[in-house]
């Protein structure tokens, strides 16, 4: 069996699909953020992913890393705030790792997203348990790496990652926010999931459906 790879063309389709999902979930993300923060998260993601679509639709190259970096910068460039920086890094850090590659296998994608997680944790200082996107992203990356080591398929890996992200995001309901605007509400965030973590779950679900 030939080793499965994701081409630049395929990644473009995936990113466009992820963008459409995030844009369609603006209301849902806003509602989550009203409970935990300023209520501006949904609108920010809408701005960011609309820009992602614009930026990558015009991309004519075949560099997978460059494409993902473009997507990441498109988010940071328009979303602003801490969200813009970390959600942008989710794609741009992976893209920087994959620069120059026309395609990537599962192990390479897992390594690239591991870079994203490292960058996000560095930027925001969040650790698992702080009630942030890290609580969904860390389990997702671990799932990718586990399937990659076991020689599983791309589909299986991203489906497992999506499940892990969803579980991790739901677990944030029982946490008290330690970072970001939500941390100002402290105990009042108990019982509500972190919007950033739920967004990560949405992203990985969308990837798993398209890959």
């Amino acid at each position: 069996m030939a080793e499965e790879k994701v081409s630049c063309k395929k990644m473009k389709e995936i990113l466009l699909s992820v963008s459409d999902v995030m844009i369609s979930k603006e209301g849902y993300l806003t509602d989550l953020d009203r409970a935990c923060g300023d209520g501006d998260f949904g609108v920010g993601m809408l701005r960011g992913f609309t820009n992602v679509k614009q930026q990558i639709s015009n991309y004519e190259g075949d560099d997978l890393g460059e494409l993902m970096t473009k997507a990441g910068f498109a988010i940071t460039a328009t979303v602003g705030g801490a969200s813009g920086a970390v959600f942008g890094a989710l794609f741009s850090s992976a893209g920087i790792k994959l620069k120059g590659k026309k395609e990537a296998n599962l192990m390479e994608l897992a390594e690239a997203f591991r870079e994203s997680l490292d960058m996000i944790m560095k930027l925001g200082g969040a650790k698992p348990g702080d009630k942030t996107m890290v609580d969904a992203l860390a389990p997702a990356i671990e799932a990718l790496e586990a399937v990659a080591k076991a020689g599983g398929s791309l589909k299986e890996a991203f489906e497992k990652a999506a499940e892990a992200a969803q579980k991790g995001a739901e677990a944030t309901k029982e946490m008290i926010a330690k970072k970001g605007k939500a941390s100002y509400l402290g105990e009042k965030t108990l019982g509500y999931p972190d919007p950033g973590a739920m967004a990560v779950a949405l992203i990985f679900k969308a990837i798993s459906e398209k890959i």
Partner: protein
Amino acid sequence: MARAKKLINDPLKVTVEELEGFVKAYSYVVRKVGTHAVVRKDAPVKGKVAILSGGGSGHEPLFIGYVGYGMCDGAVYGEVFAAPTPPNILEVTRAIDGGAGVLYIYGNYAGDNMNFGLAAQMAQAEGIEVETIPYWDDISSAPPERKTERRGIAGGFYVYKCAGAAAEIWGADFKEVKRIAEKARENVRSFGVALAPGTIPATGKPTFELGEDEIYFGIGAHGEKGVLLTKIKPADEVTEIIINEILKDLPLKSGDEVNVLVNGCGSTTLMELYIVTRKAVQILADMGVEVHHVDVGNFLTTQEMAGVTISILKLDDELKELCDAPAYTPIVKICPELQSKLK
């Protein structure tokens, strides 16, 4: 209590529209760069270290009001209460770069550190010397041993003033201006009290909740958790609490000299601010501390939040001279020549 009625149009366009209005009002001092930034009319000033301020909008006149002669060269806004984006920061950096370096001076918040940090890397890659100086004057946000985790609030005013004067009036180089900015930062402490929250334009939601007769000491500029919730007290008592907290963190003795900033959080009346000022100056004078200069008014607001923050800057000869130096911005006008006519 907080009111959600505001004079705005599309809540998602408040930042863009307010900047368009601002530059029309202050066209004799500033011009716009892009949609989210203003710079001094004559930027870039060749050979001068440039000062860039910035952060979330929603705290007017913070950042944009400090742009002009002798203070900030530019100010870049993010959306309401959100950090500005790297491309916007970079665009205004290029507009104010006079070839002597650019200092990013902003409040110490996660989003601002991330975005100014990213922009600084990009600017450096373009050959512009940039360093970041977050300020952290809010003593309620962390203990002294973790002061670099503290939030930046109204006391940042002194960092901008001193750095701006060093760059413009003294013609100091990059290293010097950075040293002075950091010194001003280390010598200012702020603490405040809230009486009522402001509301977020896009949602109408208050930034925190407070009972009718409650006041909350140490709450942050975005509604961050405070340190002491009590019932309303007379202004003198409130002012004593605030000054005493600051003095615990910045011990002063007889003979020391300070500048004081009494800042309104948005809807607190000038009458109230003047009453607070009266007591603040009296407490310090009773200690034998010389109050050299007081600034009172709205410098860092949070929409229609009711409350006051007090910032105290401990002076030495350098900081005193820099604070007294001329400045001309939309909200800061220091004209020693004109002032001397009143002696």
